[in-house]
């Protein structure tokens, strides 16, 4: 179990449990690899990269707050995939396994970033733009930047369900399995995350 802490309100480090794909049912089989079944050899790695690299890059981009330059993290993710591919037994879907690795790597990356920021900039605070009424006709890029900053400012335990549920459009069951939490807990976290977003983006949601 990997436990890490977030205290800063900007990042709100929280304790989390490392998702374990072993709890997935046997029904979640590796899909889309043209009949290649586990155990995967190194030959399957190219196909995995080819098929999932874009999805993983998008998920990584969303989890890290849309920096758009996620190549290093994705490289690390696929390095972990390459190392752990021999140990993958296919007890869950390959996509879920990859997403689990992605979430773990993103957590590690963000945690390192937070530590580095705390070390170099002791009191770094994410400055949100002042609330101003949105233009009724058009949501300009500034407004969407604000939305993205609000999502980024959420604690990890709220941000990850939001990204998986609303941006990756995964089901509640699949999201809870990827995150390694129960569906009820996921619903609770989603509800709390929505409350926070409503509070921060009230005037945008009223329209």
């Amino acid at each position: 179990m990997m436990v890490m802490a977030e205290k800063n309100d900007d990042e709100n480090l929280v304790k989390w449990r490392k998702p374990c794909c072993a709890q997935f049912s046997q029904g979640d089989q590796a899909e889309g690899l043209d009949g290649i079944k586990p155990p995967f050899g190194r030959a399957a790695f190219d196909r995995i990269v080819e098929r999932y690299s874009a999805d993983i890059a998008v998920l990584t981009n969303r989890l890290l707050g849309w920096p758009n330059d996620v190549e290093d993290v994705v490289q690390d993710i696929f390095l972990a995939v390459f190392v752990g591919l021999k140990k993958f037994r296919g007890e869950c879907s390959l996509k879920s396994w990859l997403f689990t690795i992605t979430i773990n790597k993103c957590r590690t990356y963000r945690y390192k970033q937070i530590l580095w920021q705390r070390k170099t900039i002791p009191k770094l605070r994410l400055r949100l733009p002042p609330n101003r009424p949105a233009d009724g006709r058009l949501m300009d890029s500034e407004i969407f930047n604000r939305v993205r900053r609000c999502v980024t400012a959420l604690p990890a335990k709220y941000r990850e369900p939001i990204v998986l549920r609303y941006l990756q459009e995964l089901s509640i069951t699949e999201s809870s399995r990827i995150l390694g939490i129960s569906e009820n807990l996921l619903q609770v976290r989603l509800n709390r995350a929505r409350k926070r977003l409503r509070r921060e983006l009230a005037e945008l949601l009223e329209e």
Partner: protein
Amino acid sequence: MTEDKIQNLLQKADETAGRPTPVSINLSTVRRRANRKRIVSVAVPIAAAAVIVTTVGLWGLTARNVKTKKQQKIASLQDQIRQLRARADATFDLVHEVLENERKQQRLDELQAQLASIPDPIEEIQDQVDKTAFNLVYQADRMYQELNLKRSAIQTYKRVIELFPETQWADVARQRLLEIKNSRYKKDSKGDLLWKPQNVHSSC
């Protein structure tokens, strides 16, 4: 309804953020990094173990050297203590001897002082003899001159000559006897007593 709004808003925000830069995953690079990671994961513990073993070895050697140095120092200190104890014992004996000599000398001085304070018994006896002889001569003079006990006076003079022949009073007694004898002749011829004892009180 709000959930849909939030989802819609989030999706629009995600779309406007744009796609991430295309990631090119090079298999050879990944394999090289994996190999490097594996080497590091093996080499780091080995290096750490080597460092630990070296450190422990050096520490052991250092501790042993320190122990040996400590033992040598302890032995040296023990020798010094032994020598100092021997010197202290010798000094103590010397001091004891000096004190004993001083005590003896002091006792000897006291005895000599006591001895010096004791009068000479011979002189004491001689004084007593002189005094006794004088008393006898004095009594004899009184008996002869004041009491007119001539016979007793002659016996006393003779006794002085007999008992203390070496003293000056024996000479005085002889002289008295001689004078008494002479006075008999004079008395016999003239019938008066012409002799008077002389030098009796002046000699005392």
